[in-house]
């Protein structure tokens, strides 16, 4: 019986050798391993980790907006191996002008809703996704609210000096 969270550092050389130049970089921090790959080789890396290294579960798929940097976006895949008790992270960078990534739905079925959430909140499109719709925000919503340029606040905070002005602009409902 393996530990629930074991250091997966021993895995890094094997994967790097097997996949060759598909792994652009391997980051190791406190026993956590991150493989950085390109968008074009992403599905290959995920398939290899699932089939050869027994990472059966996609625990999470998420996106980060590193606004001043270029490439601006990073897609992050957290993989878990239940049979080996290991975790590993796969990261790929996307440019702001070309926010398209291949869908991981063919490799991990649970990527379906996770990718819809990323599309909803960050506006990254996934090619080959069976149902690329919004999942959290209402269907008619405009914009992608977790982008850094999206305003954090909706309404100005009311104090005694500006309360009347805010109240005058507020769209009150009618009967």
């Amino acid at each position, binding site marked *: 019986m393996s530990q629930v969270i074991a250091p997966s550092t021993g895995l890094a050389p094997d994967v790097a050798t097997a996949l060759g130049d598909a792994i652009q970089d391997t980051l190791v921090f406190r026993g956590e391993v991150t493989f950085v790959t390109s968008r074009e080789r992403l599905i290959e890396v995920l398939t290899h980790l699932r089939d050869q290294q027994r990472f059966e579960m996609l625990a999470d798929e998420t996106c980060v907006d590193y606004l001043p940097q270029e490439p601006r976006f990073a897609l992050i895949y957290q993989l878990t191996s239940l049979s080996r008790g290991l975790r590993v992270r796969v990261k790929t960078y996307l440019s702001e002008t070309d926010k398209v990534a291949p869908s991981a739905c063919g490799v991990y079925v649970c990527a379906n809703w996770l990718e819809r959430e990323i599309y909803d909140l960050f506006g990254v499109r996934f090619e080959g996704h069976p149902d690329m719709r919004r999942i*959290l*925000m*209402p269907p008619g919503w405009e914009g992608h609210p977790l982008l850094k340029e*999206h305003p954090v606040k*909706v309404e100005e*905070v009311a104090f005694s000096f500006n309360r009347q002005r805010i109240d005058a602009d*507020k769209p*009150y*409902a009618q009967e």
Partner: protein
Amino acid sequence: MGLEQKLGDMGVVTTSLEKAIGWARSNAIWPMLFGLACCAIEMMSTQASRYDLSRFGMELMRASPRQSDLMIVAGRVSRKMAPVVRTLYDQMPDPKWVIAMGDCASCGGVFNNYAVVQGVDEIVPVDVYVAGCPPRPETLIDGILKLQDKIKKEPLNKWQ
């Protein structure tokens, strides 16, 4: 036997129709069984035995908007939930009233962001705002008593 003998000969009591109807409406309000967030826990507590909302004739929470007089918006209303709340309000027959329970329903509370409606008064007309995060059951009962006072003073032609 009982009360009638002690009352003596009362004869006729006169009042205005407006007052009589207001009195009748205010003491048998049926709220809608409808909670959105943590304020709903306090609302449940308000109905339960310790605080006992039935003392004010409001114990009957209706699961259908067609049978309700009062909508207690208990909790934050997300933008996605807003059309649903408005539909429920439209489905309630007149006369109807709305209590915004808690800070989130009143003004958005701490959720000043893209996902939450900044006060439920943007989508339905609110009669009484109850402050608190969440309000204690006593506070909600106080808000309900304020609403009862308001209903008693309402003119008859308001719901034409």
